[in-house]
C-alpha cells in the first residue's frame, strides 16, 4: 500500500486528490445508479492506493484485450479490470466477423483489391455515415492492416475461413471486407446450438497472449470512479473499483488503483443503462433489453465517470440515426435478452443469467400484440423502421408516455408443432415471465401480468377480439388493418402461447469524444491527460462491431503509453 503525500504548488496533493475525487462523485453518481460514493467522498482525508500500475484498462472485451496487449508491447505494466467473472465481453458471444480490410494479408492472398482509401470511402458515405467523425475514422482505417497483423501475431487464426469479398454495407451492418477467425475449441464460456461463436476465437487467443506477456487481470471488479488531479484539470491518476458477485451486484469491497501512465476505457456500450440511453432516444424505456446483457455489462458507468471529470460525448447523431445498425432488433422469442444472434444453451457458463435459449421467431405464424392486446404492424415486415416506430409508440398505460411496452408473439399449438418449439426449460423462460401458455385466450391474457414490464393486465376481450379478427383475415387472405400479405395460419388450436417479442437494442455508436489517438477530450476539445477510450465506449466511428473495437483498442493502448 502506498499513500500520496507529496505537495503540488504548496498544497498537499492529498487535498487535490480529494477534491478531484469529490468532483467525480456526488449527485451525478447517485443519479446514474452508482450507489456508494468512494471512500474519499465519505470523509476519508486522502486516496489510499491499494494497487499501482502503469496502465489500467477497463473491460476485457473486443477493445480491452488489444488495448492491454498494445500497451504492454510498448513496455507498460498493465492491469485489466473486468466486471464479469470471465474475460471476453460481448465479443465472446459474437459471430467473430471482423470488418477489417484495407489490403490485409488474406485479401492480398485472395486477390482482393482494397486499400485504406477504399475502406474510408465505404464507411463515410454521405448519407449513411453523415455523422461520422472523419478525422477519427481516417486514423481507424489507416490502422486496419496493422491491426490485422497484430491479431495474427497474438494468436488469432483466420486461415480456415479466409475473407469475404468487399461489399457495400447491408442495412443492419455496415460491413466492408470481413474476416473471421476459428471458433475457440473449448465452448464452455459461451455456447449456442444454432450459431457460430467465432468471437471466442478472437478473445481467447488474445487473453492467452496478454497473460503470457504479463498483463494482469482483475476479474469480477467494476470501475465506479476515475480520479483526476483536479475536478476538471490535470491528469487522470487512477480509478476506484468495486468487487461484484456473479450477478454483477456490488459486494461492497473496493480498491483504489493508481495509474502512472493512464486509464483506457474499453467498457463496451451504454445501452443497458436506461437513464443514459434515453438521453439519445427517450422512447427506449426499461422494457427494451440489451443484447449480451447477461454476458457482459454495458451500463455506461465508465463513460459517466469520465463525464464527471470533464469528458465530452462525440458524434451523438450516430446514436439516433435510423437504418444502419443501431436500430432495435426484432429478436428471438421467449427469452429476456432476445437478440437474434445471442442465443445461449445450458452448457454456457452464463446460462444461469440468460435462463433460456429462446425460440427462433416465426413471424408468418403469429400475431404480435402490445401490452393492450392489440396488433400494431404487419408482423412479417422485418426491416422497416415503421415497425420499430410503431412498436415503440405508447399504448395508453396511465403515466407512461414513453416506450411501447412489451410486445408479445401470440401463437397456438399448431405453430409449436410445425416449428418443433420446446415450451419448457431450457427453450423458454417461463419462471422469469417471458413465456406463457393458456388453454383459452382468456387464460393466456390472465397470465401476462407476471412479466415485470407488463404494467397492467392485458384485457382478455381485446386479445380475443384481435385474434378473432386476425383469423377472419386469414379466411379471405386480406389484412384489412395492416396489409399483411402472408396470412396462411389461424391462431385457434389450444393451448395458446405468448412469447416475449419486444424489440431488443444493440450497438452503441455514441461514446466519449476522442482525438485521433483515442485520447478522450473535454468540452473544449482539450485532450484529458491519461484518459483513453476505445470500442463501443468511443463515439465517432459509424461502423458496427469488432473491427472498430479491436482497432481502436490497439490505437488507445499504444498511444496511452507513447504519450506518457
Amino acid at each position, binding site marked *: 500500500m502506498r499513500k500520496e503525500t507529496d505537495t503540488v504548488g504548496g498544497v498537499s496533493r492529498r487535498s487535490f486528490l480529494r477534491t478531484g475525487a469529490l468532483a467525480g462523485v456526488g449527485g451525478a453518481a447517485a443519479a446514474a445508479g452508482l450507489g456508494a460514493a468512494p471512500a474519499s467522498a465519505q470523509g476519508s482525508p486522502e486516496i489510499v492506493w491499494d494497487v499501482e500500475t502503469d496502465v489500467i484498462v477497463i473491460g476485457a472485451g473486443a477493445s480491452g484485450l488489444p488495448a492491454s496487449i498494445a500497451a504492454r508491447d510498448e513496455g507498460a505494466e498493465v492491469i485489466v479490470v473486468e466486471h464479469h467473472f470471465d474475460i471476453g465481453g460481448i465479443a465472446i458471444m459474437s459471430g467473430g466477423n471482423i470488418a477489417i480490410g484495407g489490403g490485409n494479408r488474406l485479401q492480398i492472398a485472395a486477390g482482393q483489391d482494397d486499400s485504406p482509401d477504399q475502406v474510408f470511402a465505404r464507411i463515410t458515405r454521405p448519407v449513411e455515415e453523415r455523422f461520422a467523425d472523419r478525422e477519427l475514422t481516417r486514423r481507424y482505417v489507416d490502422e486496419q492492416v496493422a491491426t490485422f497483423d497484430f491479431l495474427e501475431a497474438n494468436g488469432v487464426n483466420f486461415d480456415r475461413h479466409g475473407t469475404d469479398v468487399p461489399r457495400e454495407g447491408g442495412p443492419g451492418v455496415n460491413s466492408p471486407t470481413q474476416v473471421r477467425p476459428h471458433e475457440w475449441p473449448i465452448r464452455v464460456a459461451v455456447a449456442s446450438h444454432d450459431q457460430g461463436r467465432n468471437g471466442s476465437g478472437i478473445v481467447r487467443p488474445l487473453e492467452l497472449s496478454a497473460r503470457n506477456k504479463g498483463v494482469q487481470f482483475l476479474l469480477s471488479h467494476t470501475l465506479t470512479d476515475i480520479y483526476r488531479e483536479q475536478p476538471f484539470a490535470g491528469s487522470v491518476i487512477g480509478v476506484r473499483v468495486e468487487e461484484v458477485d456473479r*450477478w454483477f451486484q456490488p459486494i461492497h469491497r473496493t480498491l483504489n488503483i493508481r495509474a502512472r501512465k493512464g486509464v483506457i476505457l474499453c467498457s463496451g456500450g451504454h445501452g443497458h443503462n436506461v437513464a443514459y440511453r434515453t438521453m439519445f432516444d427517450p422512447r427506449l424505456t426499461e422494457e427494451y433489453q440489451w443484447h449480451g446483457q447477461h454476458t457482459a455489462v454495458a451500463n455506461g458507468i465508465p463513460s459517466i465517470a469520465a463525464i464527471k471529470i470533464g469528458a465530452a460525448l462525440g458524434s451523438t447523431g450516430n446514436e439516433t440515426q435510423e437504418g444502419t445498425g443501431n436500430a432495435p432488433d426484432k429478436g428471438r422469442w421467449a427469452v429476456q435478452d432476445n437478440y437474434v444472434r445471442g442465443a445461449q444453451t445450458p452448457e454456457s457458463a452464463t446460462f444461469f443469467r440468460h435462463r433460456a435459449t429462446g425460440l427462433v421467431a416465426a413471424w408468418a405464424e403469429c400475431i404480435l400484440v402490445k401490452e393492450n392486446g392489440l396488433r400494431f404492424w404487419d408482423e412479417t415486415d422485418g426491416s422497416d423502421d415503421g415497425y420499430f416506430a410503431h412498436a415503440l409508440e405508447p399504448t395508453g398505460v396511465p403515466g407512461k408516455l414513453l416506450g411501447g411496452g412489451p410486445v408479445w408473439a401470440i401463437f397456438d399449438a399448431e405453430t409449436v408443432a410445425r416449428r418443433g418449439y420446446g415450451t419448457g426449460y431450457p427453450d423458454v423462460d417461463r419462471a422469469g415471465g417471458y413465456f406463457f401458455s393458456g388453454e383459452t385466450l382468456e387464460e393466456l391474457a390472465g397470465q401476462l401480468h407476471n412479466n415485470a414490464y407488463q404494467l397492467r393486465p392485458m384485457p382478455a376481450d381485446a386479445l380475443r377480439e384481435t385474434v378473432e379478427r386476425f383469423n377472419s383475415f386469414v379466411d379471405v387472405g386480406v389484412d384489412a388493418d395492416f396489409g399483411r400479405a402472408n396470412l396462411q395460419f389461424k391462431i385457434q388450436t389450444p*393451448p395458446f402461447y405468448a412469447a416475449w417479442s419486444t424489440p431488443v437494442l444493440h450497438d452503441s455508436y455514441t461514446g466519449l469524444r476522442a482525438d485521433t489517438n483515442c485520447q478522450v477530450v473535454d468540452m473544449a476539445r482539450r485532450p484529458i491527460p491519461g484518459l483513453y477510450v476505445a470500442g463501443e465506449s468511443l463515439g465517432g466511428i459509424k461502423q458496427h462491431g469488432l473491427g472498430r473495437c479491436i482497432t481502436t483498442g490497439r490505437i488507445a493502448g499504444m498511444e496511452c503509453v507513447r504519450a506518457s
Partner: protein
Amino acid sequence: MVPPSGFPIRLELKRPLPESVDAGVPFALAVAIESGSGCDIAGAPFAILDETGATVTAGELPPVTRLTTDSEQYDPRHGSVDLRPSVEIMVPAPASVGSFAWTLALPSNAIDGIWHNAASLGFRFATREHLTSLAVWDNPTPLAVGSSHDIKVGAKCSAGCPLAGETVEVIDAEGAVVGRAQLGATPWPGTASLYWTSLLLRAPDQEGHYRWSARMAGPALGLPHGTPVPTAFSFVVTKRAEHQVAISVVDADSGAPVGNAQIRLGPFRAATNRAGLATIALPPGDFNLKVFKDNYEVRDQALAVSDDVNVVVAAQAIPEEDPYARYWKT
C-alpha cells in the same frame, strides 16, 4: 398470566396475495418465517382461523425454503430477492364470493426441545367467480356450400372444474342455434382441463364470409361460476370445387423444386411438398395466386380456372440482408 418466555417467531407475508383468488380453490400463502432460536420450524403445528376465530384448517408447517444467492432459483433480474426463510401454506378459499380477513396462528410450542412463543399473521383476500371461456378449432375454411364438417369446441373453467357433460352450442350470425354437443370426459391433449367435443355443422347454402360463435348452453353452471364468455369463429363458403389445380414452385435460377412454399388462391390455402408441388381443388373462377417462402420473392399472378390446370411458379431467391446470416443460420 405468565408473560411469554420462549423464543419469538416472526411471520410476514413474503409476497402480496393476488387481488383475488378463485372461490373454493386452495391458494398458496407464502410466509417469511424467522425464529429467534434459529431452530428448524418445519413440522410445528399451525392453524388458519377465520374472522370468528374458528379453525378453517390446521396442519404442520412444511419444510422451510432457504434460498441463497447460489440457489438455482435465485433470480435478481427484476429486483432484489427476498432471501428470508419461508414456507408455503395452502389455504382453502371459501366457495362463496366475498372478502375475508383470516389469521395464520402458530401456538406456543417446543421445537427441538426449545420453547417458542405463539405467533400469528393476519391476511386479507377476496374470492372471485370462476370464469369459463371457450375455444373453437379445427374449423376448416373455405367450405363448399351446403357441405357438412366437424369443428372442435372446448371450454375451460379458470379453476379447472371438470366440465365434462356440459353442453356447448354454436349459433349463427342471426342467433339461431346450428349445432349442439356435450363436452367429453377427457381434457384436450396438452391441456389440464380444457374439456372438448366435436360438433357437426352444415355450411350455409350461400357463398360468403361467415362469423358464428360458440357458447355454453344448458343450465347455468352453479355458483361460483360467472357468466361464461362466448367465442366467435369465422369461415368462408364458396362454390363447389370442380377443378384440380397443380402448382409447382421452382427456384428461378436453378430450377430446383421449392418445398414448403405457402400458396394462396383467394380463400384457398396449400403448401408445396418436397417436390415443390401442391394440388388444390378449386371452383371455376378468377384467382390471384400468391406464393410465400422465406428468402424468396414471388410475384403474384392472375389465374383463371375453368379446367384442370398445371401452373409453374418461378421463385426468385433473394440475398439475405444480414451479412452474418450465413454464419448463424447453418
